[in-house]
């Protein structure tokens, strides 16, 4: 054994080395397991030293303060844990609601309902009636779903405009287990030439493009949203203004952003 290092070992056990010396000893112990045993013995001797001092009974106050601190931390931990538990069902909502879903039937039904709704709105030619139209669309969907008892209903999520376009509103209608959904939107402004609306599905990894959205003269638009992942895996949907042809990532103003 290295004589110099050997001289340091007792002082390492006593916790009385400089940082540099400590590093030397630790490196030495890593390379020489046989010295580890010797060190353990020395440390066991040094760890008995506190018993050489006559014990001093602490005032009750110290324990009271300690346990108060501990209880506060336990309570905080429990609060965080409860919050997490409360969030979990929300994450699983899609999965728990629709275990077995016939994608073909539902998608056709959904598109049919949406088209009806859009046609109705166009006939009325009144943007102010769009809210009612969307309600009607939801009712239609419910009726259709009621007529299809063997299948699960589609999920409908309300979409809201941001401060940039507060009048924007719409719905995303989807089967959580599929990779596609129908987006119907109204109240969007006409864009200047060279710009387009782009739809984004957002998960922990960030936004993923779900397609470009064209709106008509009434500010209404319809898009079959598609993705590599199932819709239920996303946390939010956003719509931004992008240059024609779309972007890899959102670059322009966000006009719609809603949790899924």
């Amino acid at each position, binding site marked *: 054994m290295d004589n110099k290092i050997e*001289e340091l070992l007792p*002082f390492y056990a*006593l916790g009385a080395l400089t940082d540099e010396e400590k590093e030397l000893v630790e490196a030495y112990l890593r390379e020489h397991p046989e010295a580890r045993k010797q060190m353990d013995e020395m440390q066991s001797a*040094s760890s008995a030293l*506190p*018993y050489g001092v*006559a*014990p001093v009974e602490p005032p009750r106050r110290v324990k009271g303060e300690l346990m108060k601190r*501990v209880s506060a931390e336990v309570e905080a931990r429990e609060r965080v844990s409860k919050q997490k538990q409360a969030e979990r069902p929300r994450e699983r909502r899609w999965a728990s609601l629709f275990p077995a879903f016939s994608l073909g039937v539902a998608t056709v039904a959904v598109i049919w309902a949406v088209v009806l709704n859009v046609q109705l709105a166009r006939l009325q030619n009144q943007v102010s009636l769009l809210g009612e139209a969307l309600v009607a669309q939801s009712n239609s969907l419910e009726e259709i779903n009621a007529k299809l008892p063997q299948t699960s209903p589609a999920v409908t999520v309300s979409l809201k405009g941001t401060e940039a376009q507060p009048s924007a509103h719409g719905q995303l209608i989807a089967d959580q287990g599929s990779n596609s959904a129908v987006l119907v939107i109204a109240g969007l402004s006409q864009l200047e030439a060279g710009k387009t609306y782009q739809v984004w599905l957002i998960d922990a990894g960030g936004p993923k493009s779900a397609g470009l959205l064209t709106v008509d003269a009434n500010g209404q638009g319809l898009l079959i949203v598609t993705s590599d992942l199932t819709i239920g895996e996303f946390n939010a949907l956003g719509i931004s203004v992008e240059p024609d042809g779309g972007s890899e990532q959102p670059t322009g103003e966000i006009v719609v952003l809603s949790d899924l």
Partner: protein
Amino acid sequence: MRLRERVAFQQVSDETLASQVARGDSGALETLYDRHASTVLAVALKIIGEQTAAEDVLQETFWRAWRSASTYRQERGSFTGWLFRIARNLAIDAYRRRNVRPQTVLEVDEADSLLDRIPDPDSNVAEQAQTALMNQRVRKVLAGLPRAQRQVIELAYFYGMTRQEIAEATGEALGTIHTRARLGLQKIREELEKEDFEGTDG
């Protein structure tokens, strides 16, 4: 903590209690506190020399034990060894911040300070019984140690003095200090084994 829980905890080892603390069991921490707080406070008080600061170190030691019990590894030594190292390091830091040594090196030597105090007669609670026994054994072992060896060990452990500082303070050669520390620790270990001391490693 309810009486039944206290009794249950008294039957388990420090190491088992430490693993319970690591899982967030505050009752286990309370039992460890009842067992070892008086030793931790004694060490802190000896190092710092001031009651309030020593009590702060006591609370901080057990708070750190609570927060980092999961880092304690039984295979690397006893729980008390781990706990006392936390206390000792905190106390030396606190002492250095205060920058006032409670005793001079000469006073340490003359007062024979490891042996100069008697246990508090009011500390006769169940958790303290084992501590009192260990206290008696270790004091006996230390009393049997050559004074020069005990002095080097005490200056290093309780005062955090380096080898060079001890050599300077005592006027001895560095080689002599090395030998005294090594022989002193060896003797403590041998004597404690003879005493069948259960509170140390291995």
